């Protein structure tokens, strides 16, 4: 048995060495490994960077758009909240976090510690760095670039603009006309006529032309039927305000006073 093993061992050595000596089997260049490591490191850094950026943008969107404010209407605002939720931003964030985690796992530098520790560490870092970044003016500059003519805005446009599409259950915009049982508002997308005849809760505040409002309700035959409405403060939803301004310019009443 031992002799057989030795014979087999010698055979393997001879075969492998003959492949090496003949040049059929060559050492892979050290630069290939260096490039692989650099590539993996760069991909990891880029994933982390984008995850931090998208976390920051998601926070900024929630804070500066109409999305979270719909929840202040109670259970009736949930549909509008869900409709205006930045799904693309959230999905991109999740993808970049998973990409970073997968690269970290594949790199083999992290196996000494349980992966759950690293995953929590990674998530913590992304959230912390994203939150800090959200307090700077970077997300606002990105958002302004997106709605403006900045070339880099093209990349971020789908993440912001698609979330501003006309919604079935909520409207946020600037009042430009007030009539009997209706108002007309400019939204980031278009001009909407809002029917107030079925408004269940009477407005506590006085609405004036030029005010920004938030309405929840539903669409029927091309008309938005309001169920609840409130006036938004200037700082409540700066993204909506900037988008409306970008689209329609300064406030001009539709009807002459």
């Amino acid at each position, binding site marked *: 048995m031992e002799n057989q*093993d030795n014979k*087999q*061992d010698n*055979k*393997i*050595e001879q*075969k*492998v*060495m003959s*492949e*090496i*000596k003949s040049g059929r*089997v*060559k*050492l*892979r*260049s*050290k630069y*290939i*490994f260096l490039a692989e490591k650099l590539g993996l490191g760069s991909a990891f850094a880029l994933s982390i960077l984008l995850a931090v950026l998208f976390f920051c943008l998601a926070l900024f969107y929630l804070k500066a758009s109409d999305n979270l404010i719909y929840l202040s209407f109670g259970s009736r605002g949930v549909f509008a909240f869900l409709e205006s939720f930045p799904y693309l931003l959230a999905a991109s964030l999740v993808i970049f976090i998973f990409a970073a985690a997968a690269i970290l796992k594949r790199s*083999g530098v992290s*196996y*000494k*510690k*349980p992966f759950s520790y690293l995953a929590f560490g990674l998530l913590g870092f992304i959230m912390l760095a994203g939150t800090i970044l959200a307090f700077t003016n970077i997300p606002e500059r990105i958002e302004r670039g997106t709605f403006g003519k900045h070339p880099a805005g093209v990349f971020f446009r789908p993440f912001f603009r698609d979330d501003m599409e006309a919604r079935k259950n909520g409207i946020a915009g600037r009042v430009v006309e007030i009539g009997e049982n209706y108002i007309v508002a400019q939204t980031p997308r278009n001009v909407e006529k809002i029917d107030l005849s079925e408004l269940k809760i009477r407005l506590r505040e006085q609405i004036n032309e030029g005010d920004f409002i938030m309405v929840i309700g539903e669409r029927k035959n091309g008309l938005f039927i309001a169920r609840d409405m409130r006036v938004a403060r200037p700082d409540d939803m700066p993204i909506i305000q900037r988008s409306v301004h970008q689209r329609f310019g300064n406030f001009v009443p539709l009807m002459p006073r």
Partner: protein
Amino acid sequence: MTSKTNLTGLSDLKVLSDERLAAIIREKDRELYGEIIRRYQTKLSHYLRKFVHDADELEDVLQDVFIKTYKNLYDFNVNKKFSSWIYRIAHNEAVNYIKKHRKEAFSLDAKELEIIDEKIDVKKEFDAQLLKNKIGKSLSLMKEKYREPLLLYYFEEKSYEEISDIMRIPRSTVGILIMRGKNILKEFLTR
């Protein structure tokens, strides 16, 4: 032995650590790779035999391991243990082989049977051949994640640290897997 390095003879070669030898092979003298093969062929053959039962296939797998090891020598970090690195390559080849082929019963030699009897503490009065077959079958039925650390720890005599490097799992997990693997094997055998 012809050598392009300053090594004066076979005795010098023998005292070189695996790590130093790997560094010399990739930087100076590729023909010294034969020494690596001589150092590891018996150990790796013993390890791979647990997964590959056919002698010809075992030879092919072993050859692949040595060729992959050679090709990737620049990927080896000389500050780490060479044996863990080459076992890692063998482990990957074994995993690939298992994926391609159906599971077969393990074949244990007499010494391995003694180890199992002593370490796993099977105090049943089995007939030796019956016990051997039963252990082989139990190991083949066991999940890969429990079987591999058991094999490396008991049969290849690797430390927790080395198994951690070979399997790329935390050291604490190695201990847990070995303990669970032992219990599963014991359960199989006492059934």
